């Protein structure tokens, strides 16, 4: 957990913290749920494990399966960024590249797991997997001195992370370790794939599936979120809200995180920053609320989102004159 004082100034917020999961073993928060699911797969001596993934989960499952010496199969959209296809293969996972969206990969993965008796962490091992996600709430509570914040801003993919936060609070409260009143849970999803946000905005509270997600935040590009309905309920019950920043706002959020706090996030992290910024501007988050932003994946996995924003640098000779010219003159004083 990092206190984000520069971001506080930029967003005019009294207290902002970053729950930084960019530095987990496989560089995303997915190591948390996978640890529990793979432990269960070992307990049951399952012949193989796997997942359907937008990238981060594929790496986390492959790494944990390598350590547990269990064969691993990960189903991903073939269009994923190269780094996200590289990592699971490096860990020894078999990557099954599906010509289609994440939802297509998910459908066929379920059929394969069902037919072969394999344990897919986010499908037939999902209840155990969800238990691991709760640790984000527990750690937040512990690292804030055994207190919970007023607001937690979470990225939304399937919605399971957000519902796990709600469950984590409920359990702490039942144990008498936290007040009954939960933190306000705020979900953030890219405008190009916002089935949960649109459902939150609707009267019936049902997600609005997206057939073809269109966003740079690939890790959140789940058009048919499995826990979307429950996530909407959790957001409503905790008096939070759901928000859908644009890709441009998300990239600006990633830049802010990097330049103000020295944290390099993939677009999912920029999504939560963008939502904080938008919500401070329109008052959905109050200046005096204590806010925790979940930053769930590392930016080194998604360099392609920057396109030509950082063009190659032309080398210069190793001379003072050349450096002066490069820097536009000699600094004074």
């Amino acid at each position, binding site marked *: 957990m990092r206190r984000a004082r520069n971001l506080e100034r930029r967003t005019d917020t009294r207290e902002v913290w970053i729950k930084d999961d960019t530095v987990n073993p496989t560089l995303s928060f997915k190591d948390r749920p996978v640890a529990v699911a793979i432990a269960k797969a070992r307990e049951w001596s399952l012949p193989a494990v796997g997942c359907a993934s937008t990238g*981060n989960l594929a790496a986390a499952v492959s790494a944990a399966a390598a350590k547990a010496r269990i064969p691993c199969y990960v189903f991903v959209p073939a269009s994923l960024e190269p780094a996200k296809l590289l990592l699971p293969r490096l860990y020894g996972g078999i990557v099954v590249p599906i010509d289609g969206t*994440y939802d297509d990969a998910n459908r066929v993965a379920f059929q394969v797991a069902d037919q072969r008796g394999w344990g897919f962490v*986010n499908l*037939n091992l*999902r209840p155990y997997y969800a238990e691991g996600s709760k640790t984000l709430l527990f750690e937040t509570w512990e690292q804030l001195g055994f207190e919970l914040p007023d607001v937690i801003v979470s990225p939304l993919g399937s919605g399971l992370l957000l519902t796990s936060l709600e469950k984590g609070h409920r359990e702490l409260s039942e144990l008498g370790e936290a007040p009954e009143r939960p933190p306000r849970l705020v979900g953030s999803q890219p405008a190009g794939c916002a089935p949960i946000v649109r459902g939150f905005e609707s009267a019936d509270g049902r997600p609005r*599936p997206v057939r073809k997600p269109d966003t740079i935040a690939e890790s959140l590009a*789940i058009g*048919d979120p*499995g826990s979307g*309905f429950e996530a909407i309920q959790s957001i409503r019950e905790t008096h939070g809200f759901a928000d859908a920043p644009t890709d441009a706002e998300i990239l600006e959020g990633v830049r802010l995180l990097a330049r103000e706090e020295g944290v390099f996030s993939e677009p999912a992290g920029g999504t939560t920053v963008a939502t904080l910024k938008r919500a401070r501007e329109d008052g959905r988050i109050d200046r005096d609320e204590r806010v925790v932003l979940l930053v769930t994946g590392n930016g080194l996995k998604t360099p392609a989102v920057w396109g030509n924003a950082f063009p190659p640098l032309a080398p210069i000779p190793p001379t003072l004159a050349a450096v002066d010219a490069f820097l536009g003159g000699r600094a004074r004083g």
Partner: protein
Amino acid sequence: MVRIVLASPIATATGGERELEVDFQGTLRDLFDVVTTKYGRQFQQRILEADGALRRFVNVYVNGEDARFLAGLDTPIPRDATVDLLPAISGG
């Protein structure tokens, strides 16, 4: 023949049968009526809400396409179609 493939959590409603073949042409709603006639109301209750809408815990695919993106229960089912019934579980 229309081929219906049920994931194991849903096949509890067909006595464990995971692949059904039905000589049929009509809409998805009609197809479910045919299967309900054979397997009883437990199948219908597993797939449909009391008001006749598709249950949100079940995803239906017609030749690989999510029926919600087609015409829902009014989706025409060709005579040689494959209809997959899966629990609505997705995402990390």
